[in-house]
């Protein structure tokens, strides 16, 4: 048995008479649309999750691994001297690329979310902070801690590892989880296609037999069915991904990958493609449910 390849153009253009030979509705049709919608929704969700987790893990890993903080809580009057001493120690420490004491303005900015903008920083015993950036080799944390203890009694070195490590681990796990989900969804899609094909063949065995009886070639029959089911699956996928897309139309390609878009990108960048997608989805309108009324669950 040889099936001539079904050309994409013929699939898109279609043949209204050939379409009619496939029974119009049925249980399998609704299931195909529903499953395609659910799969597309879950795939987007899993992709979003893994991309977000990946981004988070990378950001945390990169930014926190290279930075640490020295906190100096000195008695009144000794602050500036201790900061200077600590900076001296840090400059002499191999593995430290730069060390810089935060200015009062920067400290105020850090505290502003908690205490408001009018904080009289000078009157409060706020510890001074020194931001330390490591070289790629890193420094010897234990050694530095001992030296600081000896020379600057009020200094505490915080190299962020204590809370960074579990966070990075969690984000990595989350990313792994996302990819595993995506793999599972791919496998489920494969299973769904197999089951749908089997169910469709069983449900339409009579139609196929009649078509063969009156002299239809395999290609003709396959084209009629492939077209119907491809359009149905596309319609379902549009239903599954469409609402998310309409809510956060950020990416330029008309795909719904909300987290992949950087917050810095202009928020209206994708609205054009969203309109375009809506126009396109009207072409599939026979396969889509009627438009949802305002206030549908995904718009809330």
């Amino acid at each position, binding site marked *: *048995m*040889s099936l001539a390849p079904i050309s994409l153009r013929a699939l898109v253009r279609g043949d209204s*008479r*050939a379409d*009619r*030979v496939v*029974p*119009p509705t049925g249980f399998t049709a609704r299931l195909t649309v529903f499953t395609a919608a659910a799969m597309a929704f879950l795939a987007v969700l899993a992709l979003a999750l893994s991309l977000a987790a990946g981004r988070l893990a990378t950001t945390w890993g990169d930014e926190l691994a290279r930075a640490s903080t020295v906190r100096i809580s000195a008695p009144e009057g000794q602050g500036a001297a201790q900061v200077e001493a600590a900076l001296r120690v840090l400059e002499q420490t191999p593995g430290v690329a730069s060390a810089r004491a935060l200015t009062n303005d920067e400290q105020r900015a850090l505290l502003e979310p908690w205490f408001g903008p009018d904080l009289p920083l000078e009157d409060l015993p706020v510890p001074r902070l020194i931001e330390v950036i490591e070289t790629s080799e890193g420094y010897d944390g234990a050694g530095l801690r001992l030296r600081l203890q000896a020379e600057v009694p009020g200094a505490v070195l915080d190299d962020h590892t204590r809370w960074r490590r579990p966070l990075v681990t969690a984000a990595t796990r989350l990313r792994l989880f996302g990819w595993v989900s995506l793999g599972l969804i791919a496998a489920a899609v494969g299973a769904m296609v197999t089951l749908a094909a089997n169910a469709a063949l069983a449900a339409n065995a*009579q*139609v196929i*037999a*009649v*078509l*063969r*009886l*009156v*002299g*239809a*070639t*395999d*290609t*003709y029959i396959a084209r009629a069915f492939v077209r119907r089911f491809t359009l149905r699956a596309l319609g379902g996928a549009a239903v599954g991904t469409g609402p998310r897309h309409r809510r956060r139309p950020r990416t330029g390609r008309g795909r719904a990958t909300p987290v992949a878009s950087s917050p810095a990108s202009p928020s209206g960048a994708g609205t054009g493609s969203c309109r375009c997608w809506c126009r396109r989805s009207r072409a599939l309108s026979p396969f889509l449910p009627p438009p949802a009324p305002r206030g549908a669950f995904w718009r809330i």
Partner: protein
Amino acid sequence: MIELDSVAYNYGGGELLTDISLDLAPGSFHFLTGPSGAGKTTFLKLCYGALVPTAGQVRLFKRDVRQMTRDQVAMSRRRIGVVHQDCRFLDHLPLSENVALPLVVSGAEAGQEGNLRELMAWVGLSGRADALPPELSGGERQRAALARAVIMSPEVILADEPTGNVDWDMSQRLLQLLVELNRMGKTILIATHDLQLIRAAKVQVQARVLRIKDRRLQTAGADL
């Protein structure tokens, strides 16, 4: 047109048909008879390439069925009109579209509307063109199946119990249609166990009667 040469067929539990040879000549009119379960339908299926013989050779239009691709079988179906025992329609399409189905699948439906109307009138179904197949009576279904079988103007018409579930008058009308087709030069093979129908036909055309007995094809005729 259709040649069978020492053909045998076996569904897996012993041979149903053995050593069958037949040559359906153009313009001939054959009846195929035999008790129920003797293999009449199997014989017809061998004749239109739905089954491949387990032994021997079947040639459709001088081509061995075993060597034919599925597309070639489909093409030969367009030259053989089949009236199935259970008619087999697409239940979601109206009758006129069902009758025109062979034209649609072969891409030849353009400009055939007049022919379709004429054919529907010929089988007396003009008024039922928009009815769905499940709404039709047994006789109407049989006539529609005949119309669908002949719409491509095939060279051979194979009919499996075309008068199976219709009354005598209706079977006479169907026979009349088949006789007319034979007069137009078509080769006809009708499987039936209705001997009265065969007698009625013999008055109008020169029909040969074949009988399947003990798994073999015999020529009857004189005794009818």
